[in-house]
């Protein structure tokens, strides 16, 4: 295997480069079956992180993996399963999307921020009476950080980078050397 190119922080100056019109609207807000997936990113002092960037990647409502281009110029009809959202001055991010389908469904989430030297991966599982097999392998105390909270319009998923209630971040085997 070749040596992996290391990551570096997204830095403070990505706002004019990575966000784009429609980045966080995988489906138009208010359209049929649209849900909101949102939350706040919080640092180790409990303060909101106003310069974080989140990406989600998710299956379609029928559980299938979406193989459709068009995320950067959304036509309003094509669901691509992928989106990007910046946090605002209160550390809040929000997506308009569809409910991910399939057994043990989750939003795959990537977190970037100034001050964060490499991206972090996590999962936002939909709440379910029977936790996904993966969740059973996570400390009961921390498991809740991987489960979104149901709301009338969708799901809330807060991310704590550090400290009390620190979100469980994932290693897919790529980060060990």
């Amino acid at each position, binding site marked *: 295997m070749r040596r992996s190119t290391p990551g570096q922080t997204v830095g403070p100056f990505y706002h004019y480069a990575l966000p784009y019109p429609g980045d966080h609207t995988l489906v138009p807000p208010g359209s049929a079956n649209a849900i909101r997936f949102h939350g706040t990113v919080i640092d180790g002092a409990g303060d909101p992180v106003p310069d974080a960037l989140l990406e989600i990647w998710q299956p379609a409502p029928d559980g299938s993996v979406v193989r459709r281009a068009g995320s950067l110029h959304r036509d309003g009809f094509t669901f691509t399963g992928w989106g990007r959202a910046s946090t605002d001055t209160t550390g809040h991010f929000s997506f308009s999307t569809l409910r991910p389908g399939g057994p043990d469904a989750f939003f795959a989430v990537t977190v970037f921020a100034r001050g964060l030297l490499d991206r972090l991966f996590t999962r936002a599982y939909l709440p379910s009476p029977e936790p996904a097999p993966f969740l059973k392998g*996570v400390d009961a105390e921390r498991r809740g950080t991987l489960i979104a909270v149901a709301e009338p319009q969708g799901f809330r998923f807060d991310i704590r980078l550090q400290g009390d209630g620190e979100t469980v971040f994932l290693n897919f085997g790529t980060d060990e050397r």
Partner: protein
Amino acid sequence: MSSQPSDAAAGTQAEISAEMAEIDKTHTSTGHARPQPVLNYPPYRSSILRHPTKDLHHADPEEIERWAPCFGPQDVGALEADLTVQHPGEPIGERIEVTGRIRDGAGRPVAGQLVEIWQANAAGRYIHQRDQHPAPIDPNFTGVGRCLSDAEGRYRFTTIRPGPYPWKNHRNAWRPAHIHFSLFGTDFTQRLITQMYFPGDPLLALDPIYRSITDARDRELLVARYDHEVTRPQWSTGYRWDIVLTGPHRTRFEEDDA
């Protein structure tokens, strides 16, 4: 844990350099392999409150994570790979070509994937509200580019060599010149945002973001090399920078980075 606030302009470069040398020494003496970059890297002050303190939890990728989002020609305009033609006039600075191949850990090309870049102008200034560096804005340079990799995983940008710029990590702190790269692989788990640097830059040794990759062999992977084959006569100098996005099935690497 230090309670020093983010962006504290307290330390001098000498103090930051001493902290970085101390971390290097610890890492070398224990011989313990660490993820690169190190997320908990106090010389980069903004990382202090923004790194996880718990170990990352191992996960086998589920089906959705074995795929990456799709991008296509409808996502990226043909001119977006040339950052020098986005305005009525020519930007100021040294025109350069930056090209390379994107591959996975097994050497397979990452084809048809989205590559995004952003950077400061020749004077070291970003077109960004938060950038208050008193260097000139170039009305003919935005500093944002996109392209799709080709069938062999190659990308190519025409741009202006960015300048170094000051920041507030410590007193007299300067970032080495760099181009930000955002990359997608063939798997969700290969997602990468990083920075490409230029060879021979004396600021690299002083920079806590670059030095947060504590293994010199790894951080040197972020330095492009000058390539006269990429240089175009009477037009632009050329740099080559190859990228490796490893997947979840990665095993210990071999020394085969030819």
